[in-house]
C-alpha cells in the first residue's frame, strides 16, 4: 500500500511537477480552442455537402467520411507528421495536430449533423422555401437550429472525445498536458505526475460526462 502511495500519489513529486503540467494544460486548452471550432465548422460543411443535388459530390463526401472514420486518429496524426516531410512539406507538431483533427473531427461531427438534419421532416424545408426563403436561408434559419437541438447530446459527447484525443498530440512531441506529465514521469521515475494530469482531465471532463449522461437518459425516455 505504501509503495502504491509513493509511486502513484506522491504529493512532493506532484507539487514539483505542477508548474510543468499546468503549462501543458495551457497548451491542451490552446489546442482545444483551435480544433473544436475547426471540427464543428468542417463537420457542418460536410453535412451540407451531403445534401447537394450533384450525386458525385455526395458519393465522394460519403467515401471520405468513411475513410476518416476508419483510420484511427493516432494513425492519421503520425502519417501526417511523419509522412508529409517525404513529400517536401514539414508541418510543425501543432499544424500536424490541427490538420489531423480537422480531417477526423469533420467526419465525426459531419455524421452527427447529418443525423440531426435527417431528423427534421421534409415539410420544414418545404414550408420555409414556400415563404420565400432561399435554400441557404431555410438551412440556417429553420432546419439547422432544430437539427442541432435534436443532436445536442451527441455533439457534446463528441466534443468530450475531442478534448480527450488532444492527448495524442504528445506522441508528436507537442508539449500539451500528457507530454509534460510524461516528461516529469521519466525524470522522476515516478507515475505521480501522470496521476496529476489524470486528475486535471477528470476535473475538466467529469462534469461534462455527467451532463451528457443525463441528457442521453432524458432523450431515451
Amino acid at each position, binding site marked *: 500500500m505504501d*509503495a*502504491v502511495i509513493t*509511486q*502513484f500519489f506522491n504529493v512532493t513529486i506532484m507539487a514539483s511537477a505542477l508548474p510543468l503540467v499546468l503549462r501543458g494544460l495551457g497548451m491542451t486548452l490552446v489546442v482545444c480552442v483551435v480544433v473544436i471550432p475547426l471540427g464543428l465548422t468542417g463537420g457542418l460543411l460536410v453535412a451540407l455537402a451531403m445534401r447537394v443535388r450533384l450525386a458525385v459530390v455526395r458519393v465522394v463526401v460519403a467515401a471520405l467520411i*468513411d*475513410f476518416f*472514420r*476508419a*483510420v*484511427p*486518429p*493516432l*494513425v492519421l496524426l*503520425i*502519417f501526417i507528421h*511523419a*509522412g508529409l516531410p*517525404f*513529400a517536401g512539406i514539414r508541418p510543425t507538431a501543432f499544424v500536424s495536430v490541427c490538420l489531423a483533427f480537422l480531417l477526423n473531427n469533420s467526419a465525426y461531427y459531419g455524421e452527427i449533423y447529418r443525423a440531426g438534419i435527417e431528423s427534421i421532416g421534409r415539410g420544414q424545408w418545404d414550408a420555409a422555401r414556400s415563404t420565400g426563403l432561399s435554400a441557404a436561408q431555410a438551412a440556417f434559419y429553420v432546419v439547422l437550429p432544430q437539427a442541432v437541438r435534436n443532436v445536442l447530446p451527441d455533439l457534446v459527447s463528441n466534443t*468530450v*472525445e475531442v478534448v*480527450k*484525443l*488532444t*492527448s*495524442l498530440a*504528445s*506522441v508528436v512531441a507537442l508539449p500539451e498536458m*500528457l507530454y509534460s506529465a*510524461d516528461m516529469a*514521469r521519466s525524470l522522476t*521515475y*515516478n*507515475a505521480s505526475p*501522470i*496521476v496529476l*494530469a*489524470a486528475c486535471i*482531465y*477528470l476535473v475538466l*471532463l*467529469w462534469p*461534462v*460526462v*455527467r451532463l451528457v*449522461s443525463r441528457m*442521453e*437518459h432524458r432523450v*431515451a*425516455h
Partner: protein
Amino acid sequence: MQHSIFIDSFFKPEIIARYAPDILRAMLVTIEVALLVVVTGLALGLLLAVVRSFRFTPINALIVVYVDMFRALPPLVLVLLVYFGLPNVGINLPSGAVLWLVLSLVLGAFAEEIFWAGILSVRKGQWEAARSTGLGFGQTLAYVILPQAIRLTVPPLTNRTIAITKNTALGSVIGVPEILNVATTTESFLGNATPLTMGAIAYVALFVPVVLFGRWLETRFAWRRA
C-alpha cells in the same frame, strides 16, 4: 522525374515486397487485441449493467464512479499510467496485456452505460407483467428485459466498440507490435515513407468494412424500431 521521386518515397515496390509479411503479421496482432478487447469489454459492461439493475446503492455508486472516470480519462493517459506505473509497485505486465486491460476497462465503462440506458428504456409494465406470471427477478431480467434492451443498444454500442478497437493503435506508444508500431519503426529504419503507406492501407482494409458494417446495422435496427 518528380513522379518517380513520389513513387520511391511512398510506394517503392521493393520495400512493399520485402516488408509485406511484417505488416501482415502486425495486422494479426491488431485483430487479436481488438477481438479480445471486444469480448472482455462487452462482457464486463453487460455484467456491470446487470449488477446495477439489482439497485444496491453502495455498489451502484462504485459502478457510476468507475464508468464516469473511464469515460472522462483519455485512454492514452491510462495506457501510460498502467504501463509505466505498475512495474514500480512490482507488477510487470507485457505491453500487449496492458493495452488489452486498459481498452477492455474503457469499453466496459462505455458499454455499461449503454446497456444500462437500454435496460431503463424497457417499460415498467414489462417488469410487472413478467413478475406477475411467476418469473423471478433474474428470470425476468434474462428472458424479458435484456432481449429487448440489447436490441435497442445495438447501434450506439457498435459505434462505440468500433471507436475503441481503433484505439489499438495506442499500443504503438508502448511497443505492442501492431500495425502502427511496425509501420513507424520500419519507416524510421529505412528512411522511407512506404511502410507508412502500407500501414495506412492495412488500417483501411481492416476498418472500412467494420465502419460499413456498423452503418448497415444502424439502418437495419433503426428501421425495425420504426
